[in-house]
């Protein structure tokens, strides 16, 4: 069955460092991979989308990579700030199941001042 894995342990880093979060998937052929941010008690907020034929995408301090051979996406936040502390979710949309999204369980990021 399809599986999307994100580090369940929280990632604790110091302000100013680069945070790197991982999303691995199995038994899946995604057309798109999206990253969302979720704060406690709130709905997820869309950050970035990367297509299966793209290797890398950037937006301000955010960078996403997508390796369909390794079945992995990496999400980087450079020059991290305490305000970046949140849970980050990856979501996949299938090649043969458009508009059907599968989410990972998310990784909590704590940026300490």
């Amino acid at each position, binding site marked *: 069955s399809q599986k999307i894995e994100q580090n369940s342990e929280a990632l604790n880093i110091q302000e100013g460092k680069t945070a790197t979060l991982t999303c691995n998937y199995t038994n899946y052929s995604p057309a798109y991979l999206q990253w969302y941010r979720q704060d406690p008690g709130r709905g997820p907020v*869309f950050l970035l989308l990367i297509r299966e034929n793209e290797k890398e995408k950037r937006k301000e301090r955010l960078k996403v990579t997508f390796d369909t051979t390794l079945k992995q996406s990496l999400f980087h936040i450079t020059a991290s700030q305490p305000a970046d502390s949140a849970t980050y979710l990856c979501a996949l949309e299938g090649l043969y199941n458009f508009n059907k999204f599968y*989410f990972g369980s*998310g990784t909590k990021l704590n940026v300490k001042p």
Partner: protein
Amino acid sequence: DAGVTQSPTHLIKTRGQQVTLRCSPKSGHDTVSWYQQALGQGPQFIFQYYEEEERQRGNFPDRFSGHQFPNYSSELNVNALLLGDSALYLCASSQLAENDNEQFFGPGTRLTVL
């Protein structure tokens, strides 16, 4: 411009009861998706509505049903509630014609089944 709104914010029901949750999409959006999010887990896709029809469905039983109205708002109905249905129910809207298929989520409805 109002974003996605959901009602009610919180709801407490008992096993066997039925519940209806409501969602108004972001202005200009025509597609509504519903998700169930258990504590500490990611959102699980329930179904998606477009042009008043269910277009995609996740692995949820028939107890979960929905509807989309001509104004694009949507309802999620859950019958014969189980304790395991306790979760945050999220609604997300998007515009079919837009690139990136970005979904805008509402704040969710917290359902507790006793």
